[in-house]
């Protein structure tokens, strides 16, 4: 029983970190209908920024996540203005290709600035664990999970309780209507993309404390994160949390009870089955796309 609980705890904590990493990806899709293939590269950019700030200042990387998020917000805004705004109404395949290009560009820039070597952010508590009832609970994963909950809760509140949130939702549901009531759709999209990138940066700071990273690592992340948001329902913030927790637990359970070689296959099998039953994902909504926008 203890062993099962230990495995479950490890799975939930892993899922918590995945949720943090996936939040920006699902937000951007939900509002802009853009599948941001550069999301993994933004996560790594955040990790590298956190690394540099940590080495330079000696401050706790958890505190630095706020600074990283602010810088990445600016980066996201800039990328939106330069790259995405001109193709905002283009078909989804265009933005997929474009964001893939952004990912490659970021990979190259990271290589130039930080080099093609592995980096790790290791504060004193990076490999410490809490002990509770005979279970060990890795500290950084706990902090990552809590941060994920805080970020997602904040995003959820912004979306539901603020004028900005209402503007974002209005823009995503009915763009001409949003314009009619005075919403600057372009500014809302820029804000959304910047928020998504800020979330990626924040997640990157935590990811960098758990795993070594180098510029080329973004390919490994984007596939896993896309799977999570598809499972949860593209565009659904609560869905991202549920999807991330499911994938995290499925990975760990598969590794422990079936065999580590199934770590990748079992979660994708879960996704396959879920999508057969609910093509819109666990918490996604079906959208009508039979009416062309004005």
């Amino acid at each position, binding site marked *: 029983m203890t062993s099962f609980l230990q495995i479950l705890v490890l799975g939930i904590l892993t899922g918590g970190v995945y949720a943090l990493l996936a939040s920006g990806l699902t937000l951007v899709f939900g509002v802009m209908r853009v599948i941001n293939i550069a999301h993994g590269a933004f996560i790594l950019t955040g990790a590298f920024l956190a690394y540099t700030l940590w080495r330079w200042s000696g401050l706790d990387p958890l505190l630095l996540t706020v600074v990283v998020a602010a810088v990445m917000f600016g980066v996201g805004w800039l990328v939106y203005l330069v790259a995405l705004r001109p193709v905002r109404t283009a078909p989804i395949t265009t933005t997929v290709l474009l964001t893939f290009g952004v990912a490659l560009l970021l990979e190259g820039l990271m290589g130039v600035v930080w080099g*093609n070597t592995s*980096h790790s952010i290791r504060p004193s508590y*990076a*490999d410490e664990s809490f002990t509770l009832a005979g279970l*060990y609970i890795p500290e950084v994963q706990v902090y990552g999970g809590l941060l994920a909950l805080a970020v997602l809760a904040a995003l959820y509140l912004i979306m539901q309780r603020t004028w900005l949130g209402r503007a974002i939702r209005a823009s995503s549901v009915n763009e001409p209507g949003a314009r009619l009531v005075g919403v600057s759709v372009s500014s809302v999209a820029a804000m959304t993309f910047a928020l998504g990138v800020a979330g990626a940066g924040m997640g990157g700071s935590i990811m960098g404390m*758990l*795993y070594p990273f180098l510029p080329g690592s973004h390919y490994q992340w984007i596939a896993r994160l896309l799977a999570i948001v598809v499972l949860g329902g593209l565009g659904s913030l609560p869905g991202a949390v549920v999807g991330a927790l499911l994938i995290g637990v499925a990975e760990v359970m598969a590794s422990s009870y079936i065999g*580590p070689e199934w*770590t*990748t296959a079992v979660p994708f099998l879960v996704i396959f089955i879920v999508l057969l039953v609910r093509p819109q994902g666990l918490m996604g909504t079906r959208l009508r796309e039979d009416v062309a926008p004005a």
Partner: protein
Amino acid sequence: MTQLRKYRHSRLRLCSAAAAALLLTAACGQGASSGGGDGPIKIGSSLPLTGEFSEAGQATQKGYQTWVALTNQNGGLLGRQVEIIVKDDATNQNTVVTDYNALIAQDKVDLLLGTQSSLLNLPASAIAERNRMLYVEPAGGAPELFERGFTYLFFSQQATTDYQGAVWAKWVASLPADKRPRKVAYPSVDDPFSKSVADGVEKILTAAGIQTAYKEVYPLGTKNLDSIVNAVAASGADAVVHGSVFEDGVTFVRAMERANFKPKLIYQSQAPAFGKQYLDGVGQKATEGMFYSTSWNEVAETPGNAAFVAKYRELFKEEPTEDAADGFAAAEVVAAAVKGVGGIEDQKALADWLHANKVDTILGTLSWDKAGRPTGEYLVGQWQNGKAEIVLPPEVATSKRLVRYGGGDL
């Protein structure tokens, strides 16, 4: 050694790439090298300067460049200056095929040097073989590469991957009964390089009567190793042989720290050979007593090693890595064949010369069997007090102590 970690795709994909390589080169004729003359000797290579393997690819390029600089400084090769053309294959099997075809047919290079990793060398070496050009690879030790009957292919490290951990395993098997581990765990990433290292060690230890407590393979790209460490600890193993590449090597050790799991002995493939990156990745405390195999040591008194280290530092203002040293050694092997034959025209003669002779390199003396497999043994390193030491074989050891994992006597 470390560069071999990038054998990251399925065998099916490798075979497909090799077949594609052969088809693509079907129209190519004999080696199109420019041959004699007084101009520079042109050497061509394609390396993964971008993409997943770029870290090792760039290091290998620096090794090649260091060899070119030293060779030209010392009067060149056969009295001619040397120049190297390096293309970027972007860690892509199709691109590497295109690159080597272009090097041979368009750039008309006189000699080839190999690329990084078994993954990329598999199709690239097929191009060289089809064009009957000598192909010395600084990486690419997966046994499958040498089961194709090629005659122009040579691997310029000490041994193929299945023998990489042999020296360490034989040492463990030779320990007195009270110091030997009773049960060993063999977690490994699904990578023919890393897995074959672990398999090779298991074979020797099993023959010595040491039980296997855990043996599982996990997919490349697996981020969370906590559950695997949890299972290894629960297996009762008092030694771990981890077939790892770099990132999972670091992640595994950190997961061990979080789980407070301290086996008596631990051996990892590749990751601990990354020097400072590994130290920064896991922290000094977690490196203490970690065993690994390595092809090269910075302070080894092998021929030319001091000159290589000095020139590398001068050129790049940094410390050389094992991948850079392996690149340098590959170029040394090609140069030895050219000097031995006295020309570059007859590539078959160059290959025959290497099959028949030994070559002194900065990695030590290398020799090959008829398939191009090296016939030597790797060095065994151990991290001690934050420093990577060579501990086996004893005659080249930089430290006479061998400690248990975490420190202290065995």
